[in-house]
């Protein structure tokens, strides 16, 4: 639960960066405008949550899921977000799945490497000696 009211704000630095990236280069955004957009974003989250929650309640579910959020976007007439959202979710899901595999692979590689290193350390001195002899 939010304990302080500022907990319900989004970080200004990130909001500013997103605004900058959306606008053409060199546009000056007033401090007041940035603050207003940040507040608007918080209200957007609450509005979307409330819409999504209505869909979940209608379906007698207690947990909000991806379908509820997408339905909320349609209800709020932000259909233009649907395609980019679906694409992003695909990437995100792959990333979540991939992350486990990657970390497992990394661990295996590491084990392999350390065992290889060990065997190399054992082998190399001999190889060096051979070189000298030849």
């Amino acid at each position: 639960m939010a304990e302080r009211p500022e907990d319900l704000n989004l970080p200004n630095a990130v909001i500013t960066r997103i605004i900058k990236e959306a606008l053409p280069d060199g546009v000056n955004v007033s401090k007041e405008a940035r603050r207003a957009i940040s507040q608007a974003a918080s209200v957007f989250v609450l509005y979307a949550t409330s819409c999504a929650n209505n869909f979940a309640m209608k379906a007698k579910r207690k947990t909000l899921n991806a379908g509820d959020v997408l339905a909320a976007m349609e209800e709020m007439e932000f259909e233009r977000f649907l395609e980019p959202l679906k694409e992003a979710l695909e990437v995100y899901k792959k990333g979540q799945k991939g992350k486990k595999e990657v970390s497992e692979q990394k661990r295996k590689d590491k084990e392999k490497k350390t065992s290889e290193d060990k065997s190399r350390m054992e082998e190399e001195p001999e190889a060096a000696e051979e070189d000298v002899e030849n």
Partner: protein
Amino acid sequence: MSGNATEKDDQTSASRRNVSLPISRVRLIMKSSPDVSSINQDALFLTTKATELFVQHLALSSFNHGSGKDSNSLSYSDLAHTAEQTETFHFLTDILPKKILASDYLKSLEQMQEEDADV
């Protein structure tokens, strides 16, 4: 909580590829709504992403329809104008009220009172 460390990992790697807003903060805002009991990971991600798209969309359409296009600036009044004029942004009118001069407000108040008196 034991889940904190992994959550942080998720956030940093997610921000590089998917979202820049902090997912944990978005969850906090969502949870501040009294009716919401739980939110699954995908719904949380989608809401965060949607909020980013919303910020871009609000900024860009306010700029494109605003008065600062020539001077290359985006001001509060451009945003207030967008909230008032664009159907999809109507829900913002409460937090983006149009600014008016006190003198204009008093004038319109007087006018309303005169009209009331006439009736």
